[in-house]
Each structure stands twice: as structure tokens, then as C-alpha cells.
């Protein structure tokens, strides 16, 4: 029976089975994937969650500054299961960033951005930027005070650009302040244009990856190694078919992840104000900036960079330059870190120390951006320290470390200072 249906389909759409073979049943992935390789499939899962819960939210959400705030309250209180759908969406947004940060860190740590996977990396970074745009436009939709002020602050980053800045800001908002025009266009971006772009980029990201094959924790190319395994003579000896081996492994990851996600959705939906902010449960007021402004946690490191940059030469453009530079440098990573050894397991001590400092700097900037240093510093150093001064000193040091990482890595690998350890011929059996 089934074979007759398959035959019928096969005759009319011959590409389908070929595609399934190519990307799933006969896609040979290295046999030594570890925990870090869960995050790609988890990102796909959360993306799917965002698309489904988002579509159902859009069925009751009403864009427009007179209706948006109330329609979100209506979803939370009156729509059957509306609270669940919205909480799944907001929790999904934060968890997607957790996943993407770890996924990106994995790619850095194992040298997955290096030749021949530069394009996979670039498409991944593009995904990161579009996911940030998606998160920002979504954050504006409930039209709470934080929605309003986040829009002002982000649009004003563009306004600092000399000469064209103010016009650009007006163009983005469709007026001198965030208003109806702004909210409606952000809604369109959030529900149509950016999701389509995301899906398109995900397809490219995975197609580009499957063209060159996955990297692995040892950073050894399995396609260059010996050929022949029990599925065929021409397949890489250290590869196993994605299905059923990795589909089943990923399902274990999905199970654990859903457990954590469900706990948050049911028992800590606002995550103590980190995933859903208290200030945003108050409707937007253009004349009142809330006393304690902080961005959602996943933007906090980048926001801290804006705060730490002083103005000089009569312009505030330096903050936005530092912020966009911090992301631009990541895009350029394949051409900054040109060390021949991929995986951290066989790289020089200098690299390991630098990467550790880089992670600490990012976390330090997150602490500043989320105002946690305001609590941490008095607790550590006594109540009467000069907070403004020490936050500046700490923050600028962290920024120096963040940018210093790229400078160091460039010199370290271009000038051949790195002393690497011998790389094994084949991946090690135990990952």
C-alpha cells in the first residue's frame, strides 16, 4: 500500500525522496557529537514554537496604540488558554537567545566557522541579527512603557549618525515619536517580513552546512578521512546517518529542554521580571520614562557598550559604533582567527585563556547592562563606593577585553605565535 503511494508521489515529485536522503537518512554526520550539538535542533524547535504560538497570538492582538495594550490584557485574561499561548511565546523568545548564544559559542570553540564553513557561519550571524530584529519588534507590540522607551532608545541609536541620523529616525518611526505608524509597521515586520526572512535564512544555513558537512568536537574533517562504513563504501568511516542516530539523540535533548521550558511557562512565566518586565505591564506614557530602565537580558551586553562610551567631538555616535562593531567583528571572525587548528582541544594555551576572558567580558557587560552591578558592587565593596565611577571603570575594562579578544586572536594566528597540540588523524571514539 504505502509503496504504491510512494511510487505515485515519486513519479510526480522525484526531488522529494532525493532531498530526504540527502539531508536526513543519508546525511553522514561525525559520530562524536556531544552536548553542544543539541542547540541547532533546539533552535529549530523554538523557531517552530514561535511561528505557531505567534500566529495564534495574532488572531487576537490588535495593533494600534489605542488597542494594543488592552488586546494583550484580553489575551491574558479572557481568551481561552490565551495566557498559555502568550507565555509560550515570551518564554520561547528568551530561550531562543539562550540557545543561540550557546550554539554560537560552540561554533567558536570548535572552530566551526573556519574553512570550509565560513558561509554557514555568515548565514548564522545573519540569523542572529534578524532574530534580534524580530525580538525587538515583538517587544514593542504590547505597547507597555518599556515597549515605548525601548523603541525610543533603539531608534535614537540611529539618530546619532551624523547628518542623516535624525531623518533616518523619523523615517523609522513615521513621525517624531513612536506612535500608531510605528506600532503598525513593526507589527507587519514582526509577523510577516522577518519570519519569512528567518525561514529563508534557516534553509540556506542548513543547505550550506550539508554541502560541506558538520564539524565536530575534535575539529577533524571526517570527509577527508578514510572511507567506508557499514552503510556503504563511499561514506566517511567516522560518519553515521543523521536518521535514526541523531534524530533520536536530538529527541533526548528535546525532552530535557521541554521539561525546563514547561517549568518556566507554568511556574515562573515572567522569570522574576527577566523574561517579562514589570514596567511593561503599565501602558506606554510618552511623558514618563520609568525610573529603572534596563533592556531585556539578551540585549544587556550590547546596551552596556552604549552606556560605557562617552560622547566626544560633540556626538554620541561612539556608543552605537561600539555596539555594531562588536557584532561586525563576529561576522569577520573566519578572517581574524586564521589558526589552522579548529578545535579548542588542540589549540594553544593563549587561545584558551583569551576565549575564557572573552566569555567573562561578555558576562560582565551583561551584568552592567541589566543593572546588576548596582546591587553587586555595594554588596562587594561597601555601600559608600562611587557607583558611577566604578561601573564606568569596570565596564570599560570589560569592553577592552571584548574587543581585545579579536585583536589578540588576529595577531596570535596571523603572526604564528600559537603553539598548538598535535591533532589526531581521525576523530576520537569517545567525544
Amino acid at each position: 500500500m504505502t509503496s504504491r503511494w510512494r511510487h505515485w508521489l515519486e513519479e510526480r515529485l522525484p526531488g522529494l525522496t532525493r532531498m530526504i536522503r540527502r539531508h536526513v537518512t543519508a546525511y553522514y554526520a561525525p559520530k562524536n557529537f556531544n552536548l553542544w550539538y543539541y542547540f541547532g535542533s533546539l533552535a529549530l524547535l523554538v523557531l517552530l514554537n514561535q511561528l505557531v504560538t505567534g500566529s495564534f497570538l495574532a488572531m487576537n492582538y490588535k495593533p494600534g496604540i489605542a488597542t494594543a495594550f488592552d488586546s494583550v490584557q484580553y489575551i491574558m485574561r479572557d481568551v481561552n488558554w490565551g495566557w498559555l499561548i502568550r507565555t509560550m511565546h515570551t518564554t520561547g523568545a528568551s530561550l531562543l537567545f539562550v540557545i543561540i548564544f550557546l550554539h554560537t559559542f560552540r561554533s567558536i570553540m570548535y572552530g566551526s566557522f573556519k574553512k570550509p564553513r565560513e558561509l554557514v557561519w555568515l548565514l548564522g550571524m545573519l540569523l542572529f541579527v534578524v532574530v534580534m530584529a524580530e525580538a525587538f519588534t515583538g517587544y514593542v507590540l504590547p505597547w507597555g512603557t518599556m515597549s515605548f522607551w525601548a523603541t525610543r532608545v533603539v531608534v535614537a541609536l540611529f539618530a546619532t549618525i551624523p547628518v542623516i541620523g535624525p531623518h533616518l529616525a523619523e523615517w523609522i518611526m513615521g513621525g517624531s515619536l513612536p506612535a500608531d505608524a510605528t506600532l503598525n509597521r513593526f507589527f507587519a515586520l514582526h509577523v510577516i517580513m522577518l519570519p519569512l526572512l528567518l525561514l529563508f535564512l534557516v534553509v540556506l544555513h542548513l543547505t550550506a552546512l550539508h554541502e560541506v558537512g558538520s564539524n565536530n568536537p575534535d575539529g577533524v574533517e571526517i570527509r577527508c578521512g578514510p572511507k567506508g562504513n557499514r552503510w556503504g563504501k563511499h561514506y566517511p568511516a567516522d560518519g553515521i546517518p543523521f536518521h535514526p542516530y541523531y534524530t533520536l539523540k536530538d529527541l533526548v535533548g528535546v525532552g530535557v529542554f521541554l521539561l525546563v521550558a514547561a517549568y518556566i511557562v507554568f511556574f515562573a512565566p515572567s522569570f522574576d521580571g527577566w523574561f517579562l518586565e514589570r514596567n511593561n505591564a503599565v501602558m506606554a506614557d510618552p511623558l514618563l520614562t520609568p525610573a529603572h530602565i534596563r533592556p531585556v537580558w539578551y540585549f544587556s551586553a550590547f546596551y552596556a557598550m552604549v552606556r560605557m562610551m562617552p560622547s566626544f567631538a560633540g556626538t554620541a555616535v561612539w556608543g552605537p559604533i561600539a555596539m555594531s562593531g562588536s557584532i561586525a567583528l563576529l561576522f569577520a571572525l573566519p578572517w581574524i582567527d586564521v589558526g589552522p587548528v579548529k578545535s579548542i582541544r588542540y589549540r594553544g594555551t593563549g587561545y584558551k585563556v583569551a576565549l575564557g576572558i572573552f566569555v567573562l567580558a561578555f558576562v560582565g557587560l551583561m551584568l552592567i547592562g541589566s543593572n546588576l552591578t548596582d546591587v553587586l558592587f555595594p554588596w562587594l565593596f561597601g555601600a559608600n563606593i562611587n557607583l558611577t565611577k566604578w561601573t564606568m571603570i569596570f565596564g570599560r575594562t570589560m569592553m577592552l577585553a571584548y574587543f581585545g579578544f579579536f585583536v589578540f586572536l588576529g595577531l596570535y594566528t596571523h603572526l604564528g605565535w600559537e603553539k598548538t597540540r598535535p591533532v589526531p588523524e581521525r576523530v576520537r571514539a569517545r567525544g
Partner: protein
Amino acid sequence: MDEYINRGRRRFLTVTTSAVGGVGIIATTVPFFQSWLPSASARATEAPVTQSLKKIEPGQQLITTWRNLPIFIVNRTPKQLAALPGQNPRLVDPDSKNTSAHQQPAYAQNGTRSIKPQWLILIGLCTHVNCVPTYKGQMKPEPFDPAWQGGYYCPCHRSRYDLAGRVYKDVPAPKNMQVPPYHFVDDTTVQIGVGPKDKA
């Protein structure tokens, strides 16, 4: 076969059709880009506003709007005014020398940045990235400045201004807060949006 292909003509047609098509595509994007510009109704909120000062007690601030922008009006006490000159060494531009981009009208380019010393009138937007700074009028130590002499504190990235809207050094904001054009209609009424000379 090959001799029947006129390569020159083929190249010419490829280049010209691509160029014309490209121009067409670019031209088509213009309406879409321009649809994001402020609409006519968004532009229609530009008239001057009149505000009575009667109910503003000494030391108090009132916020009104003009062109959808927040306007701060402060009734400065003699004590607050006396503290202004002392701030000069800590300020970026104490004498309002920066006259670019509507910083302040010429009649407000003085030590108090106002027409009458008592009345401070500002566009209430931080010059960093446009948050509305919080009025901290009391002259008492604050967590962000133990020697606080009254002024504005911006909650977004912690810029600080004194009670003439002059920005302190070492904060993200580059410039003093803007003073809008305004004039006094009578002793207790001010009109924002029109300067003393331009009034009809």
C-alpha cells in the same frame, strides 16, 4: 551554428535590458521606502502652545507638550539659581557656546539659559538618545552624585544635567538639553513655539 550568433548584439541586449530593468526595480522601491515617511496627518501637529504658569510652586516642575515633545517648565528658587555658577567646572558647555542644531535661541544663551532667570523652559529630551530625564530638584546627596545641586537625571543611560539643562562631563549625553523658542505673553503666561521677535 556559431557563426549565426551575433555576440556583440547579444551582449548589448543583455547589458541594456539588465540596466533598464535594474533602474525599474530601484524606482519601484521608492514608493515603498517613502511610505514610511511621516504622513500628512502626522505632520499636522506643529502649532505653538500656550501655558499658564500660575500653579507652578517655587522649586516645582510642570510638563506640557509641544509638537508631541515633552516641555519642562521649572519655577527655579533663588537658592537653586545661586547654585548654577558653581557647577561650571563640571559641565561640558557651561556658557552654551554650542549654537548648532537649535541648541537654544540667542535670547536664552546666558548663565540661566532662559529669558527670565526664574523660569526654566526646556525640551525634555536627553540629548543622548532622547529619553525623558527625571527632575531631581532637591539639593541633596544622590546615589549618582554625593554633591548634587539639583538638576536632571536620565534613567536610560544615566546622563546628568544641572538646573539649566546643562550636561555634566563624563556622561553619555553630548550636549545641553534644547531650549525651545518661546516668549512671555504676560507675567504668568508663556507661549512655546514662537520667539519674542517673531510674535505677531
